[in-house]
């Protein structure tokens, strides 16, 4: 018991090491939220470009997306940090966000495209027959079905983005996983640090699951009311 107490003291209190965990938590949350929100915008734009009537543009962005999706996250981040933004004054943190944003954007655009493809062309033709404009058809027919189909995968992508942030430690950005490594390297004990970050990841995941569930419920309720 005394040994555990001393280990907990060394892990959290000594040299204010709890601050390393808090920094890691803050960075993980920032990396996840910023790259996911920006990734959503990139995903929408990419999806739009891929569904473009211009075949050349569509083909180019489809290849660009598959390149991003197939490239391991670590390699993509290394390219961004060491090559693309290497000699710029941009902090590594923001280079990493740029890389994660593109990675999340690629997967999200795929999710959005699958969502859009769930709407049958017949339905769109029917809206035209009913005299709806393109915007009205998109707003009332395509968008609700796309969102409904994409939301579960969108939620999973959030968790994936959060998980992918755990590789940034190799680029010397202190996220939660790296925080555990840094503290473990000081205390010479891996267990307490790992248990701490496992609990933290679980809590973030659980909170986000609840938030997404509420959004899905609200969305379906809104759909029923309409």
């Amino acid at each position: 018991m005394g040994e555990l107490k001393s280990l907990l003291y060394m892990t959290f209190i000594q040299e204010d090491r709890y601050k390393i965990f808090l920094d890691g938590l803050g960075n993980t949350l920032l990396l996840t939220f910023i790259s996911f929100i920006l990734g959503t915008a990139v995903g929408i734009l990419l999806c739009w470009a891929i569904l473009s009537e211009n075949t050349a543009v569509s083909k180019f962005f489809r290849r660009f997306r598959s390149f991003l999706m197939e490239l391991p996250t670590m390699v993509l981040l290394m390219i961004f940090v060491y090559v693309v933004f290497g000699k710029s004054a941009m902090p590594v943190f923001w280079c990493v966000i740029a890389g994660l944003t593109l990675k999340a954007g690629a997967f999200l655009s795929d999710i959005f495209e699958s969502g859009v493809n769930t709407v049958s062309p017949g339905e769109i033709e029917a809206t035209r027959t009913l005299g709806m404009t393109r915007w009205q058809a998109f707003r009332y027919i395509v968008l609700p079905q796309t969102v409904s189909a994409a939301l579960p995968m969108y939620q999973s992508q959030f968790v994936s983005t959060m998980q992918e942030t755990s590789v940034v430690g190799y680029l010397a950005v202190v996220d939660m996983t790296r925080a555990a490594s840094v503290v473990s390297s000081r205390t010479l004990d891996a267990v307490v640090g790992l248990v701490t970050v496992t609990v933290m990841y679980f809590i973030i995941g659980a909170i986000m699951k609840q938030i997404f569930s509420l959004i899905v419920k609200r969305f379906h309720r809104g759909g029923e009311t309409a």
Partner: protein
Amino acid sequence: MGLKNRKAIRILKRTVASALAACALLCLAGCGTSGWRYTPVTDVNDLEGRRVAVLLSWEADYYLTGREDMEILRYDAVSDMLMAIKSGVVDLMAFDELGAKGVVAGAEGLELVEEPFGYTGYTLYFGGGEEALRDDFNAFLEEYKQTEAFTDHMERLRSFDGETYIPPEIELTGTGDILNVAIEGEGFPRTFMEGGAAIPTGFDVEALELFANSRNYQLVFYVSTYENMVYGLQSGLYDAAAGYLTDLNEEEAIASGLLTSEALDIVPLNFVQKNRETVNLRTAET
């Protein structure tokens, strides 16, 4: 929707798509590589705003942790640090003098900042129940430091060029109890494996061999990693461990149930930066 609106939307769509394509291409072509702002370090006490790469849980990491004037980036491997300094992500790398000289000798375009930013002592770790062995090793160190062998050890340490380590000839003569020692296999020049014969050697190994001879121990080496050395000592698998074990984290080692010896030798800590001549050439070009 009117024909004009549709046309406008189509043009807008094409413009956005083309802009995206251009951004993607520019981004991948390295448009962000223009801000070359590196200036070499001349004073190790004036490092305000510098980005310094260290190896996680190595001596420079322990020594610099807490410094708020600089940004410390902790890497897992020297290769990652090299990539970071060459691409401009960090301004400096921090090592002990031996490591710094090794990096400068092995990689092009780098130089040692001569003025040390600190000092560290290298120790041996012992298992929790090995007080007698630790005390005996400390007693040996006191004797050893009075000998010519130690003077020679220190001279070779100071004149180490980063590449060449020439060990003294030590014949193992111990016939008594077995001393199980874990060493860091890639800790050149303190503990490493010599060429194809895979014989443990290095500055720390020399001291251990002389200790074993003087106390009639049979020495058995186990090549390991830092983590395994610590776990092995904690579980009683090894009696002692050596290889870049710094006295800067002595407190944590003791709190983890290990024992540490007195410092075998004191080594300066140095920064490594881009070679000033190379930097000046590049600055002039730009």
